[in-house]
């Protein structure tokens, strides 16, 4: 009896210390209470580690979330792969688990740092927990009936993330490079709010991933052993098929000073706004579409009268007054933290100063145009 107990313990120790965790587990139904039930990422030896065949990825231009850094991963069941799509989210197989872990570099005395996200540092096999504070890990899981979104929130001890379907407000102190402090009510969305962004087709109400599209993924990534283009890597590991020959769509990096201003601004608008502001999204009510496919200047906001902006207009007459960011509604709403004014409506509680600067520069560079008002 005792011998068996000890043997069992020894197995556990071996399993953990040899870093061969249980394989990823796809739950075809239900809502597991802890992130560990999925075994996609796990904590061991002071790091948040990725399980076998869990592939990290990054986006050319990401959604802004209160300066949180993000570790994104994809996993698919053995023998399955996603189908390439030129514009839409890839066609992922049933069983796919996407994870996005939101974290901050740690500052002094329980604060976190307000900094640009250089991409996850996975050297030595994972995010070092003495250097970063994990906030939440959101899963998007592809089941037979469609995608389900599950938000898991990390505990203070950083040992476990538990399902938090009701969301919550997490008070954080962000400290800037210059030492400035900012109190933040970081909002973990409730499960219905996940669909506020991921319900990219308002009519069908279905939830879809937003990031894993060709144009966002078409960039290089520093894998543990090498640097490679993500689309090429996904094909090599068998996660992506049906990729056409020739050049593939690629978004600009919003913060790449060498990229054209227009491309940077449109990439920023696409990933931060285009999931709602599209012909099919929740903000199609506004008549303002900011997704990558939209070309019509009026749809993009030029001289566009606001509809239901309420005080979100900031007393301005048009979405974009070309050449005049100060007279344009778009940067005004981006620069607000009032829930009834700010855009996006969800997912941030502080201003993305650098993002606002980009969009202001974009509008300022537009040739002046008489909107007529």
């Amino acid at each position, binding site marked *: 009896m005792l011998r068996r107990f000890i043997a069992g*313990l*020894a197995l556990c120790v071996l399993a953990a210390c040899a870093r061969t965790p249980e394989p990823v587990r796809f739950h075809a139904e239900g809502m597991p209470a802890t992130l560990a039930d999925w075994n996609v990422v796990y904590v061991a030896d002071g790091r948040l580690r990725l399980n076998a065949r869990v592939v990290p990825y990054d986006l050319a231009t990401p959604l802004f979330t209160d300066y949180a850094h993000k570790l994104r991963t994809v996993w698919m069941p053995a023998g399955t792969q996603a189908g390439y799509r030129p514009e839409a989210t890839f066609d992922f197989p049933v069983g796919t688990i996407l994870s996005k872990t939101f974290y901050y570099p740690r500052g002094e005395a329980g604060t976190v740092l307000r900094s640009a996200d250089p991409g996850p540092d996975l050297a030595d096999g994972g995010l070092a927990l003495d250097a970063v504070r994990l906030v939440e890990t959101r899963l998007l899981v592809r089941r037979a009936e469609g995608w389900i979104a599950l938000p898991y929130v990390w505990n203070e001890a950083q040992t476990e993330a538990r399902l938090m379907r009701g969301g919550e407000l997490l008070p954080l102190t962000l400290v800037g490079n210059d030492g400035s402090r900012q109190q933040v009510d970081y909002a973990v969305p409730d499960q219905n709010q996940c669909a506020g962004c991921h319900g990219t087709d308002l009519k069908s109400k279905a939830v879809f991933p937003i990031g894993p599209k060709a144009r966002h993924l078409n960039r290089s990534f520093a894998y543990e052993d090498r640097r490679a283009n993500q689309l090429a890597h996904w094909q090599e590991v068998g996660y992506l098929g049906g990729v056409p020959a020739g050049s593939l769509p690629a978004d600009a990096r919003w913060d790449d000073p060498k990229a054209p201003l227009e491309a940077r601004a449109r990439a920023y608008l696409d990933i931060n706004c285009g999931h709602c502001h599209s012909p099919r999204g929740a903000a199609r009510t506004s008549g303002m579409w900011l997704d990558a496919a939209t070309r019509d200047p009026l749809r993009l906001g030029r001289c566009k009268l606001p509809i239901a*902006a309420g005080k979100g207009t900031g007393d301005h007459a*048009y979405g974009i007054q070309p050449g005049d960011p100060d007279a344009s509604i778009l940067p005004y709403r981006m620069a607000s933290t009032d829930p009834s004014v700010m855009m996006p409506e969800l997912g941030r509680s502080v201003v993305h100063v650098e993002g606002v600067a980009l969009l202001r520069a974009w509008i300022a560079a537009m040739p002046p145009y008489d909107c007529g008002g």
Partner: protein
Amino acid sequence: MANKMRLAAAVALALALPACEKVSSVSDSASPAGESGFAAEFRQQLLDAKPGDVIQVPAGTFHFDRSLSLRADGVTIRGAGRDKSVLSFKGQKAGAEGLLVNANDFTIEHLAIEDSKGDGLKVSEARGVTIRGVRVEWTGGPKTSNGAYGLYPVLCHDVLIEDAVAIGASDAGIYVGQSRDVVVRNSRAERNVAGIEIENTVNADVHGNIATGNTGGILVFNMPALTQQGDAVRVFANKVTANNTGNFGAKGTPVASVPAGSGIVVNSNDNIEIFDNDIADNQTANIIISSVFSTGYKADKASGEFDPYPERIFVHGNRLSGGGDSPDGLDLKALKVAMYGLGGRLPDVLFDGYVNPARAGGPQICLRDVSGVVNADGPGGYKNPSKDATPYACSLPSLPAVDLKRG
């Protein structure tokens, strides 16, 4: 030997604990810190909701620090009365509305939503919406910092709003946008910028309502570059009185152009019938007919098929009195003095004068049983206004009633 084994076990256990990180902390925030009791329970019920569910809101005031949302079809949310069951969003920190609904066959009744940061109740892309006996109010009175819309169905089909109350919205108290087959009845809108606003909506009946103390009482608007154009709206048997509150809407919004003292306003919409209303004491004009050309719109080929001209407007059989005596804004004040003298007043109907010159038969704005009309000559820079009522002495066939088939 046994001791040794016990030691080994202890060592193994000690090793296992930190390595496996199995230490779980039970005290972790399993429920949202800012919401407790029924509020937390209600949020959970919205997440778990299934078709056929009736979610009861007991009498009492329940506080939320974040917006709520519902995505399951066929759900009823039922309170104990619009002055008894209160969802309060005072001090709300996140979310652009109080409750956001994206679900079909939705009923909400007998409760109140107070002090949301943004819109009170937004229902988007839904078929079959009933809002009954719901009060949405900003309790600090009219303020620009109040949320924009009180009740806000948009992109909906088959909408009934009845016995509702909307107070203090910085845009419209009751707003139905880009929807089809709509009835707003027996409701009260006061001290909003717009009391009741029907925008880009097809087939709507607005009747039996009271709109008072707003900037504008009842508005029927059509805006460019949206999913559909408005058409076929009947406004009848309402009491639209003394909507003279100064416009506290943010500039740029469609309602910001509404002068204080507007009774019923039709803007760029076609096929409107206004009849059997009591319209009184709206100090700019009891009825205004206008175009978005008056509010900063510039014809643009990108606007596609948009028709900015109000056409086929039939006003008849209303009981009109007072009003027009103190129009809002220098231009209208000057117009009044120039046309009617210092002690005079604008007639019942004010028309901005934008017409489509290419339209055979003119705009077909038919005005009966009114004290008069003034065409302000907006297109001519307001230089040659006219009191000639003869172009408006016509009739139009009545519009059919909207029948939602639910009594």
